[in-house]
């Protein structure tokens, strides 16, 4: 037997919250690993702080710990569970780092736990730059040339050895690498090296050859204990070196290497994985190749599954994480069957007969102050992948998958007009929209040479883009629908068909064709179908059709044969959420996966449609059929017409599928669950207000304005502060809290797109109100509350950014009853079949309805884990016609333990942005802290979303005037907890007046050492800083950013500070205990 019998219990470490650089790909890998290990009969212990993951569903592991991923916590789990081994390669950098900490602090040795997959030595060698470089040179591979200089003369000597400019200069031990730069000539070198040497405390700079503009490649490699090695997928980056691979458009397989070059890269990859010593599992190895000489250098390797390996799995159909888990417990590649072909072993290299394009998704609109230039530090928050028979088709499909209102590369009605100068800059400086600007450049007649000079993007890619642009121009000259009166009349139907088919093969959307025609999308669609130009669906089969494939994983293309199969079962189609972005993340994928599981249980054939390669929903194992396709009306209707499912689920995938609901309904598609009209009622201000009036529910006074004066009039009537926002947006985009008329006038002046059908909404803002979220399920007869969640932050902070607690801790029974009955009344009125989320504000004893969303909400996974009931699954069954009574869920569960959800923010990635919270959502992910003690549950949530709460030290307080009163009792509490209190003059005086012992510290302009110095010196361990307004004072932002950089916890609301005090008190009193989900819900 190949399986390792020395092991019985394996601890798997997850990757924690979704952050930039660690998305839901590690839920996908973790789920695969859990399934693979349990299939082999191992007991799986899981730790992950992220409740929105499928892997933390209690049925995926024997013990599921939703606990912070810290060495202390993991050791506590090891102590309780006594696992034989830890598999650290499935949870990204977080898991690797945690495992290394446990190795270094001796915990692994103490508890006799071994690492499987990759050992500590291999991890260290793969991760440490110097060790890695030495290892590469040892096996005869090339690395970027470099040397260490202690003088300018040294620097020039090294420069001569390297032999070419530009050179990167990195001073040693300066904060964030400051003082470095790029030298393009010897004069630059003298200047930058001189400056760097001066700034470096050890008078040392690293001179390294620059690889900017080189071609970049990635290899996804697997190895087993018999030393069998395979390449699962090769990837070529569209954006050359200089842009992080996570921010690059990437293409699989490699396009511009000959077989000789490719095979050498393959040999080098195996040499790397062997030298680093990854015994079993997958690794990602990155290479740079000089475009003129072909010189190949190794950049880095990741001794674990990664974002790229998730992409490679989806691109080829080869489940890297699953296989890696099996290899870790002793199997060899030839002992594992390929799921897709069934007959052939996993010990082979997938060969594909299509082209895969991944495009990153950015959300710079949320962080306007952030530098939007793409660099070697990753900034994207998600990605979309598309498959086509050609690069052109795949690229255009990927671009329309992005959910940025683009429907192709060019000519989709969203092209930006820019002058040549701007265009040149947009090509030369990498940015999120560069690919569109390249299209623009070709449209304006730029040559491939010119675009290459500016971008260094390989000419093969550029030529393909130029072909798309050319076709777009042809479309404009000869419209395909052929019936436009003023336009060119096509001679015959056949020519139209040929041209349509040609455009479709290049990936053009109906929207693009419609724009070229001056027709509308629906007309083009009708014409296209009449001409019999419809997509065919192909299998992703790992083998380029050499063998029969059994796994129904499809993509569309315009070819001769349709490979779609019919099962004869009743069918349901589930629309996924598309690329991750802020406001639309893993939570919705979680819900879609649950829908697939639940509906399969009911005997449906489940059909998943999604374009996000990171997710569990796009695992071919999750549903009965997977369509890896853009979530546009055209693409979804195409699949609908093929499959004719009995129903389509649109309410689980977040805003993306909801936006399609009306179009689908209009096309006669049966929508499962709550109907689009109800969604309309909830989203339309007037209809919604009328409904609340009818039900006698309280709402905040509000109005909608199409002009500045109208807005001011409304605000005067309802009173300041007011919350203003454009209608129809998700995630609180462009929402602002306004305290006075001048600010309101400024907002209106800057407001985007104010038209009579798109007014600005003005709401009375309830200050110091408690915000409450409710998730419920309704089957039309019964409505059951999933949970009532009390926010830590006061109303006005976006609910996705607030910490919240189940069960509520400060609300009276009367208020809870009112919330409950209001929720039920609304569910009935909206005729909800499935999930509904309501947000309330509670001021005193008054309950106000803020908004209602008759769909799955971001909090569904959190609630499900807190109460131990899979809400999304139940909701899916209800949508298919089951009653809650039949499903056994008829009354609200109020757990005895506390569950705290905390948001996680990307501020460190976006230098220069302010960390204060508001109505616009900014968080990328969430964590959950659980404990029977509320304080500890909160403390755990902070530990899971670092920095953790301190147990002692100095507290710096700086609050806005309106908070100066409420801060006094809190300051007393901190004193009692043993904290020293530091404040600047205003707050200090207020505290001193209340006879609180406080140390005064200089404001920034008052002298030194000032508060910023104290923060940087580590004299301050905790900060309470409530922002003084929408436009914060400069020094506030500096203090907050310094705290962020120094990893000092900072609370920006009084309620969060209060929760922190409680948490610290609990931490001081009790030792941290861990407990699994299974235990919580069996008591």
């Amino acid at each position, binding site marked *: 037997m190949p399986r390792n019998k020395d092991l019985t219990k394996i601890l798997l470490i997850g990757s924690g919250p979704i952050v930039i650089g660690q998305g839901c790909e590690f839920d996908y890998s973790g789920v695969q690993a859990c399934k693979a290990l349990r299939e082999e009969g191992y007991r799986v212990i899981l730790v992950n702080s992220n409740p929105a993951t499928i892997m933390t569903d209690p049925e995926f592991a024997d013990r599921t710990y939703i606990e912070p991923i810290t060495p202390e916590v993991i050791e506590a789990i090891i102590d309780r569970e006594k696992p034989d081994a830890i598999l650290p390669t499935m949870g990204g950098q977080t898991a690797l780092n945690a495992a290394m900490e446990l190795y270094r602090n001796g915990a692994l040795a103490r508890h006799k736990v071994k690492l499987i997959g990759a050992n500590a030595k291999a991890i260290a060698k793969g991760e440490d730059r110097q060790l890695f470089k030495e290892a590469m040179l040892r096996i005869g*591979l*090339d690395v970027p040339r470099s040397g260490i200089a202690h003088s300018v003369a040294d620097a020039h000597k090294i420069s001569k050895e390297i032999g070419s400019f530009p050179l990167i200069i990195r001073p040693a031990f300066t904060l964030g690498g400051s003082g470095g730069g790029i030298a393009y000539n010897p004069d630059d070198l003298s200047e930058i090296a001189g400056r760097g040497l001066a700034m470096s405390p050890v008078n040392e700079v690293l001179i390294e050859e620059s690889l900017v503009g080189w071609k970049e490649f990635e290899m996804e490699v697997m190895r087993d204990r*018999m*030393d*069998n090695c*395979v390449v699962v997928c090769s990837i070529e980056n569209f954006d050359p070196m200089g842009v992080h691979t996570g921010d690059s458009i990437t293409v699989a*397989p*490699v*396009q*511009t*290497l*000959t*077989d*000789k*070059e490719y*095979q*050498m*890269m*393959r040999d*080098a990859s195996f040499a790397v994985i062997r030298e680093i010593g990854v015994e079993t599992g997958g690794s990602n190895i990155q290479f740079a*190749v*000089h*475009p003129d*000489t*072909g*010189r*190949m250098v190794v950049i880095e390797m990741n001794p674990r599954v990664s974002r790229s390996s998730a992409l490679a799995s989806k691109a080829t159909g080869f489940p890297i994480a699953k296989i890696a888990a099996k290899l870790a417990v002793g199997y*060899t*590649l*030839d002992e594992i069957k390929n799921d897709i072909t069934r*007959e*052939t*072993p996993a*010990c*082979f*290299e*997938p*060969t*594909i*007969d*299509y*082209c895969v394009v991944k495009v990153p998704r950015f959300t710079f609109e949320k962080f306007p102050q952030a530098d939007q230039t793409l660099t070697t530090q990753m900034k994207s928050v998600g990605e979309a992948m598309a498959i086509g*028979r*050609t*690069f052109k088709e795949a690229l255009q499909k990927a671009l329309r998958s992005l959910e940025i209102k683009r429907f192709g590369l060019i000519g989709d009605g969203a092209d930006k007009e820019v002058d040549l100068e701007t265009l040149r800059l947009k090509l030369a400086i990498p940015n999120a929209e560069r690919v569109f600007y390249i299209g623009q450049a070709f449209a304006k007649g730029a040559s*491939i040479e010119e675009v290459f000079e500016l971008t260094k993007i390989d*000419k*093969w890619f550029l*030529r393909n883009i130029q*072909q798309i642009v050319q076709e777009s121009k042809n479309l404009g000259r000869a419209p395909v629908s052929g019936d436009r009166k003023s336009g060119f009349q096509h001679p015959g139907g056949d020519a139209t068909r040929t041209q349509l088919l040609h455009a479709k093969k290049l990936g053009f959307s109906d929207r693009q064709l419609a724009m070229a025609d001056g027709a509308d999308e629906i007309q083009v669609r009708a014409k296209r179908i009449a001409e019999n130009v419809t997509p065919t669906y192909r299998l992703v089969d790992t*083998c*380029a*059709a*050499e*063998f*029969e494939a059994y796994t129904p994983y499809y993509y569309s293309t315009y*070819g*001769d*044969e349709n*490979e779609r199969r019919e099962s004869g079962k009743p069918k349901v189609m589930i629309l996924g959420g598309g690329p991750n972005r802020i406001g639309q993340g893993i939570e919705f994928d979680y819900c879609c996966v649950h829908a697939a599981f639940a509906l399969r249980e009911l005997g449906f054939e489940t059909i998943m449609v999604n374009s996000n390669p990171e997710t569990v929903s796009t695992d071919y194992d999750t549903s009965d059929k997977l369509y890896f396709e853009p979530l546009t009306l055209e693409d979804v209707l195409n699949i609908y017409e093929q499959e004719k499912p009995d129903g389509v689920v649109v309410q689980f995938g977040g805003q993306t599928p909801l936006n399609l609901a009306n179009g689908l309904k209009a096309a006669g598609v049966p929508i499962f669950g709550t109907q689009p009209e109800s969604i309309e009622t909830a989203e339309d201000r007037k209809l919604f207000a009328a409904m609340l009036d009818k039900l006698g529910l309280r709402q905040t006074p509000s109005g909608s304005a199409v002009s500045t004066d109208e807005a001011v009039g409304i605000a005067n009537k309802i009173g300041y502060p007011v919350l203003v926002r454009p209608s129809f947006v998700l995630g609180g985009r462009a929402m602002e809290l306004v305290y006075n008329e001048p600010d309101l006038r400024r907002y209106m002046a800057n407001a985007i797109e104010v038209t009579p059908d798109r007014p600005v909404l003005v709401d009375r803002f309830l200050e110091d109100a408690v915000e409450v979220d409710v998730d419920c399920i309704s089957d039309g007869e019964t409505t059951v509350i999933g949970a009532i969640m009390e926010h830590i932050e006061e109303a006005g902070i976006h609910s996705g950014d607030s910490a919240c607690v189940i069960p509520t801790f400060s609300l009276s029974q009367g208020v809870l009853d009112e919330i409950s009955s209001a929720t039920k009344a609304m569910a009935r009125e909206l005729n909800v079949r499935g999930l509904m989320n309501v947000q309330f504000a509670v001021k005193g004893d008054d309950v106000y309805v803020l908004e209602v969303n008759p769909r799955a909400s971001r909090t569904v996974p959190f609630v499900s884990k807190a109460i131990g009931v899979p809400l999304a699954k139940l909701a899916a069954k209800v949508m298919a016609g089951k009653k809650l009574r039949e499903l056994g869920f008829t009354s609200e569960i109020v757990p005895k333990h506390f569950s705290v959800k905390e948001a996680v923010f990307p501020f460190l990635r976006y230098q220069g942005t302010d960390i204060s919270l508001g109505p616009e959502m900014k968080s990328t992910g969430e964590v959950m802290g659980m404990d029977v003690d509320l304080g500890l549950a909160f403390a755990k949530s902070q530990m899971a979303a670092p920095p953790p709460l301190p147990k002692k030290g100095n507290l710096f307080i700086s609050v806005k005037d309106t908070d100066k009163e409420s801060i006094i009792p809190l300051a007393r509490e901190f004193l009692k907890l043993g904290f020293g209190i530091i404040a600047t003059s205003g707050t200090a005086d207020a505290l001193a007046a209340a006879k609180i012992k406080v140390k005064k510290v200089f404001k920034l302009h008052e002298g030194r050492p000032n508060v910023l110095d104290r923060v940087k010196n580590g004299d301050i361990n905790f900060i309470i800083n409530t922002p003084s307004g929408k436009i914060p004072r400069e020094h506030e932002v500096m203090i907050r950013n310094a705290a962020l950089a120094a990893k000092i916890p900072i609370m920006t609301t009084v309620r969060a500070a209060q929760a922190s005090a409680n948490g610290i008190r609990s931490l001081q009193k009790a030792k941290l205990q861990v407990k699994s989900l299974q235990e919580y819900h069996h008591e």
Partner: protein
Amino acid sequence: MRALLALEDGKFFEGESFGAAGTRVGEICFNTAMTGYQEVLTDPSYRGQIVTMTYPLIGNYGINSLDQESHEPHVRGFVIEELSEAPSNWRSEMSLDDYLKKYDIPGIQGIDTRALTRHLRTRGAMKACLTTEQMSIAQAVQRAAEGEGVIGMDYVKEVSTPKIYQWDPEDKLSRPWSIQNGNGDNKPKLPPIRFRVVAYDYGIKQNILRLLRQKGFGVTVVPASTTAEQALAQNPDGIFLSNGPGDPAALPYAHQTLRDLMGKKPIFGICLGHQILAFAFGGSTFKLKFGHRGANQPVKDLKSGKVAITAQNHGFAVDPQSLPTNVEVSHINLNDNTVEGMRHKELPIFSVQYHPEAAPGPHDASYFFSQFAELIEKKG
């Protein structure tokens, strides 16, 4: 210009012509390698065949003079989904289109090559006609049906060298080339020649010759019709049997030569050479439904248990039941368990069905050339 691909069973594909104009008939087969179209085109084993690549984007990196596997392309016709208009690679010297024009080979693009591949997979290998001429579909199907196939065909005589020659006597063609250091002159030096071998050219790929030289062999390449006596007159340390096209059963003269050589010198055979050896042992081959052609075929070494990912190009396989008891199967294909290697239990003879020389394909199996050297050393 329109081009038509018609199969003998009536299936046809209309596309766009590239490369040369004209009409060609031959067995059609598919290759699943994603890179290496130039090596495929110039591999003599494809003599007589029309080849389709399952990877849809072909021509991306053009053609260069270093990646030739013989002095000219051998395929009868080339079938792809999309021809790259602008090759991009620092070594590219010519576009694929121009290259096929130069050697008068017609190509067809813009057809659904996956549909074609699925057809061949389910119906099996068959003959096809590729034409750019004015011809009805029925006529083209007729031409395909009437054409010569592979069964019973001796294509070896078309590709074998007409006369004996020394491979690379000046050590100019064999030095390993590396992208690590770019195209510079810093290629590693070749080792001194330790052994002399006679290589039977049934359609030999140049990379075999390069690798033999890199492992310290001096190689005398001889025509396929060379008798055992003539070969032994060269006084070689060993005999090498190359790859090649066509039906191994159709080469009785080669079978006889090998029977005469067995036991006299260590022998190593690749691909067609391996199949000819099977006949010399008294065994036989059978035609595979659609062959193995690609760069991702898993082969297990039954002795070590290790798996190599290999390059393959064969339409026939050795029937293991037909082999005498003193010959053992040493390697099998993990996809279909067919024979991928044999070893004589008593004599210094071994062979592999696949391509340890790769080109195109992975280098996992290149150790066979060293094994050959060890075998000779042991016997010498």
